[in-house]
């Protein structure tokens, strides 16, 4: 049970999701380069081969993060909450007998619309909401590996 809860909250942390995706893709790229290194080619060539064979790392990373986070149970719950808030807002707005109560309905509708808009905008470009400091490109293309958290130096 604690593992499930831990996983749930880990997935809520967008940086944790990003780190996991990066680690997974990094493993793949390093394995590709390592295997290619055994064919008597330089590290640089092996890295170039790995990148070519893998495809667009940044786009794939973005796609994985988006898929991983879009159907989070809490996100679905939040969406349901927004719909409910909107419906209650309409109800209060229509059937509110007092001016102030009608205004409460308007506020509820506005909150729901803003919330949905926020989710929509956030879903448009997930990469723009994340830092690029740990991009996989420097990891793979840097010869010395000094900027990368784990480098390909271990492959040499």
């Amino acid at each position, binding site marked *: 049970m604690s593992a499930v809860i831990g996983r749930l909250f880990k997935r809520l942390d967008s940086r944790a999701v990003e780190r996991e995706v990066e680690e997974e*893709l990094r493993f*793949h790229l390093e394995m*590709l380069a390592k295997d290619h290194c055994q064919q008597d080619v330089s590290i640089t060539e092996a890295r170039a081969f790995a990148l070519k*064979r893998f*495809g667009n790392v940044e786009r794939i990373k973005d796609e994985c993060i988006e898929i991983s986070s879009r159907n989070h149970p809490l996100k679905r719950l939040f969406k349901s909450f927004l719909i409910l808030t909107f419906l209650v807002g309409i109800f209060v707005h229509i059937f509110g007998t007092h001016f102030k109560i009608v205004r409460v309905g308007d506020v509820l509708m506005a909150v729901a619309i803003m919330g949905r808009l926020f989710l929509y905008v956030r879903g448009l470009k997930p990469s723009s909401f994340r830092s690029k400091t740990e991009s996989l490109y420097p990891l793979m293309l840097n010869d010395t590996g000094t900027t990368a958290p784990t480098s390909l130096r271990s492959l040499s």
Partner: protein
Amino acid sequence: MANGRTDLMQGTLELLILKTLSRESMHGYGIAQRIHQSVDDLLKIEDGSLYPALYRMEERGWIASEWGVSENNRRAKFYRLTRAGRKHLEIERANWDRISQAVTKILQTA
């Protein structure tokens, strides 16, 4: 097709992944290697395209993932087929057989 390698049809990659995982649980790199070996590099598959497919399949409940230790003592994410995935594999395999039979029939007669 000019270089003798064919692009994958929509949904085919998922079928290949399901089939690969039906034998044993594997990490993404292992799955890619197995697929490349099986198709003798006849199909044009970028390794990276595997991951969005894996994440989508996990989202649909066809596969499940778990972090483990790889054969070279590295932390790696392992994927395994779920019961729903096995069921889906059977359905997709039957679909594939039907489609390929139909297309072959048309190509032979037309």
